C-alpha cells in the first residue's frame, strides 16, 4: 500500500528562460518518499529542462527545487549524493565493459572497497546484467544499455531517482522488466520522477502524475483526481431488455445527458456528472420501469485525461 511520508522532491515556483523562450514557467509540485511520479507532456513541454534543473545540471532563472531538503542551486553536492539521474541518452565510454562502467561510477560516487563491490553486484543483479559483466558497452542492445543506465543511476543507492524517458525504444519485454524494476525501487522507499510518452505504462506504475505543457504544470494528482478536477462528463453504456427506443426517448429530455446513440446493442451516452449523479441516473431509469441489464461508466484512461488537459494540442 502506498503511504506518502515526506517530500523528497519539492519544486518551488521554478522558472527557466532561454532568452525569449520560456521553457519552464512557475512550476511547483512535490514527490514523496516511496512514490512514483509521472511526468507527462508533449515534446518541448519543459519536462527535460525541469528534470535537468532538479538533477543539478542546469540552474533555474527563478525559483528553486529541493531534494531531501537541499537546494539544487545552493547545495548541488549534497543533492548529488541523494539523487540518481538517468537522462534520455546513454553516455557511452569507449573501450569499457559493463563492470568497469559501473565500477567507475561507483568510485565517482565515493564508494570504496567492499562497499563498492557490493553496490556493483547489487546493481547488476537488480538490472539482470550479471551475465553481461565482461561484455563491452558498445556491444549492448538498447534494452541492455537502458538496464545498465538504470544500474548506474542507482549505484550509490540514491533516495531520489529521476528517469527521463527510460522506456523509449525498448521492446515490450524490456518495458515490462523496466516497469517491474521501477516498482521495486518505489517499494524500497525511493522517490521516482519519471517521464514517458507511453502513457499506458505510466498509468500503471505511477502513483501520481503531473501534466505539463508549454512549460506550465497544468494538473497534478492521481489519474482519477485529475479526471474529476478537469472533466465531469463521462461515457455511459446501457443495455436494456427489449427495444431501446423508449429509454432513448426518456433520456433525450434530460439535461444531464447528451450524444445518445445506439450501437452494438448498447445505448451509448455522455453523462455530465460524477459517480453519485450516475447512481441517481441509474435509479431513475429503473424507477421509470426500464429493464436495465447492464450499466457501465467508462473509466477515463491517462490518455483521455492528458488529451483533455492539454486540449489536444500535442505537438
Amino acid at each position, binding site marked *: 500500500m502506498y503511504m506518502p511520508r515526506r517530500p523528497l522532491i519539492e519544486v518551488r515556483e521554478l522558472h527557466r528562460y532561454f532568452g525569449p523562450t520560456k521553457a519552464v514557467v512557475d512550476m511547483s509540485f512535490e514527490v514523496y518518499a516511496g512514490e512514483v511520479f509521472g511526468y507527462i507532456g508533449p515534446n518541448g513541454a519543459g519536462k527535460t529542462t525541469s528534470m*535537468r534543473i532538479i538533477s543539478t545540471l542546469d540552474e533555474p532563472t527563478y525559483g528553486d527545487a529541493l531534494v531531501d*531538503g*537541499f537546494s539544487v542551486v545552493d547545495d548541488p553536492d*549534497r543533492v548529488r549524493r541523494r539523487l540518481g*539521474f538517468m537522462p534520455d541518452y546513454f*553516455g*557511452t565510454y569507449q*573501450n*569499457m565493459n559493463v563492470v568497469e562502467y559501473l565500477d567507475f561510477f561507483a*568510485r565517482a560516487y565515493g564508494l570504496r572497497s567492499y562497499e563498492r563491490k557490493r553496490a556493483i553486484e547489487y546493481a547488476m543483479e537488480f538490472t539482470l546484467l550479471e551475465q553481461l559483466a565482461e561484455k563491452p558497452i558498445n556491444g549492448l542492445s538498447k534494452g541492455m544499455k537502458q538496464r545498465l543506465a538504470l544500474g548506474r543511476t542507482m549505484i550509490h543507492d540514491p533516495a531520489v531517482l529521476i528517469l527521463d524517458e527510460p522506456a523509449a525504444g525498448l521492446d515490450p519485454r524490456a518495458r515490462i522488466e523496466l516497469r517491474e524494476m521501477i516498482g521495486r525501487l518505489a517499494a524500497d522507499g525511493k522517490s521516482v520522477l519519471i517521464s514517458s510518452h507511453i502513457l499506458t505504462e505510466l498509468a500503471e506504475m505511477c502513483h501520481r502524475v503531473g501534466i505539463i505543457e508549454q512549460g506550465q504544470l497544468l494538473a497534478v494528482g492521481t489519474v482519477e483526481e485529475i479526471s474529476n478536477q478537469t472533466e465531469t462528463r463521462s461515457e455511459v453504456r446501457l443495455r436494456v431488455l427489449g427495444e431501446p427506443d423508449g429509454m432513448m426517448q426518456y433520456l433525450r429530455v434530460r439535461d444531464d445527458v447528451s450524444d445518445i446513440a445506439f450501437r452494438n446493442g448498447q445505448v451509448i451516452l455522455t453523462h455530465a456528472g460524477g459517480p453519485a449523479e450516475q447512481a441517481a441516473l441509474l435509479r431513475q431509469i429503473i424507477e421509470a420501469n426500464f429493464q436495465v441489464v447492464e450499466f457501465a461508466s467508462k473509466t477515463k484512461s491517462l490518455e483521455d485525461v492528458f488529451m483533455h488537459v492539454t486540449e489536444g494540442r500535442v505537438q
Partner: protein
Amino acid sequence: MTSVPPTALNEATSIHPPTRTAEASWLRAWNWTEARLAALAERANPILVKETRQALKSRQFIITFMIVLLFCWIVSFVGIAIVGPQIYYAAAGPGMLAAYYTILIIPLTLVVPFTAFRSLAAEQEENTFDLLSITTLGSRQIVTGKLASALVQMVVYLSAVSPCIAFTFLLRGVDAITVGMLLAVAMLGSVGLSMMALLIGAAARVRTTQVVISVALVLLLAGAGVALWFLGIGIISDGSAMYRQAEFWLFAVVVMSLYVTTFGLLHAAAAAQVAFVSENRSTPLRRWMMAQQACLCGWMAGLVYVVLGSPGASSSGFMSGVVIITATLGSGYWFLMGAMMTGEWPHLSRRVQRSLPTNDAWRPFVSLMNPGPGAGYLFAVANLTMLLIVSLSAAVWANATGMAGGGGPSLEAAFYYAIFAWSYVVAFLGFGRLIINALRKWVYVPMTAAFLIHVILLLSAIGVPTVIQMTSRELRNSGYTLLQMPNPVWTLSELANRGVNSVQADVLVLILPTAALIALLLNLRSVATELMLQRIPVPVRIIEDEAELEAAAPRGPQSPWDLDDDPA
C-alpha cells in the same frame, strides 16, 4: 589483481609464524606490496582509473607506443651503424641523446596534451559530461583526474625511451644532470601543455567550434614542441657549461616559480569552467594571482640582490629600470586579470554568501577575494598599487643609500612611469566596468564579452589618437603630443626612452591620476555594495546533514591506549 585484507595477513602470520624461510619472506613481501598497491588504487582518482583502463585498450595509444618503440630501435641501430668503429673512443652520447629526445618530445608535446584535450571535449560530445557532473566528484577532482591520466601516458612513453637514454651513457659525452634536466624539461613541458589543453577543452563547450579549436591547439602544441626541442638541444650541447653558473640556477628558480604559479592558475581556471555556477570559482583563481604577484616581487628582489650585490657591478639607473620593468609587467598582468574579473557576474550565490567574512574590520580586505566584478576590480587595483609601492620604496631606498647611482632612466622618470601605468590600469578597468554595468541593464554580458569590451576600449585609446596624429598634416612629424594622452603604449614608451620632458609629465601627472580617481570613485558605490555584503546563516538542513556525516564517519583510535582495547 586480488587484494588481501590486512587482518587476513595478520592472522596468517600469527597462526604460522615459526619457519622464516627465504621463500616465505618473499611471499610476505609480495603480499604486503600487493595489499599496499590495492589500497593505493582504492584511493586513486576515479577518472585516472577509468582512463588508464580505457587507454590500455585503446588502439590509438598502443599504435603510438609501438611507433615510439620502433623509432627508438631504428635510431639505435642506424645511429650505431653511422658512428661505426668510433664508438669505442668518440663521444657519441650527445648525438644519440638528441635523437631519442626528438622521438620522445613528439608524443609528449603533441599526442599527450591533445589526448587530454580530446578526453575532456569527448565528454561533451559523447554526452558523458552530464553523467560525470552529477557524481560527487568535485570540479578539481575531474581536472586532476584528467591530468593524472595524461601523466600516466607520459610515464609510459618515457618508459619506452628510457632504456635508450640509459644506453647513451655508455657512449660517453652525456652526464646525469644533462639527462635529468632534459627529462625534466620534457615532462614539465608536457604537463604544462596538457594543463593548457585541458583548460581549452573545458572552455570549449560549443561543438561547432571544436574543430577550429582542435586545429588551433594542434598548431599551438606543434609550436611549443619545436620550442621545447630547441631548448632540449641547447641543454644537450651547452648544459654542462650552464650548470656551473649560479645565474643559471637563479634563472631556473624564476622559471619554476612562474611555471608552478601559472600551472596552479590554469588548473583553478579549468576547474572553474567545469564547476557548478553557484560554487565559488573566483577565490582560488585570486589566490594564484596573488602568488604570481609575490613571485614577480621575488624576481625583482632577486635581480636587485644579484646585480647590486655583486662586487664592482655598475648600478647606474638600475633601480629605475627595475621599477619600470615591474610597473610594465604588473600593469599588463593586472589589466588582463582585471579585464576578466570585472566580467564576473555581480550576484553572489547564497552558497558563497554563507562563507562571507563575519569580522567587520577584516571584511573589506577579505571580501576582495570573493567573486564579483566590483571585488575583482578593487582586487586588481589593490594588488597593482601594492606592487608599485614596494618597487618605488625599494628604488627610493637604493637612491638614498647611493646604490642606485646615476645614468639610465632617472628615478623621477621611474616615478612618473609607475604613476602613469597605475592610472591607465585603474582608468581603463574602471571605465570598462562602467560600460559593462550599463550594458548589463539591458542585455546579458558574459565574461568573454566583458573582456572584449576592455580590449576594445584599450585598442581604441591606442588606435584613435595614433590615427588622428598620423593623418594630421601638422602633427604627423611632431613626435609625442598631448593628443596621445589616452594612449598608454606611446606615452609610457616615450617616458621610458626619452625621459620626463618628452611627454610633458608635469601636465600628465595632473590629468591621468585624476581620470583614474574619477573612474575609481564612480565604481566605488557598487564596489562597496559588494564588499559590505553580510554573511547569511547556514540552513538548518545543512547543519543536520553535517551532524549526520560527522556521526557516520568512521572513528580511528584517539590515543595509543585505544589500540590496546582493539581485540584485533
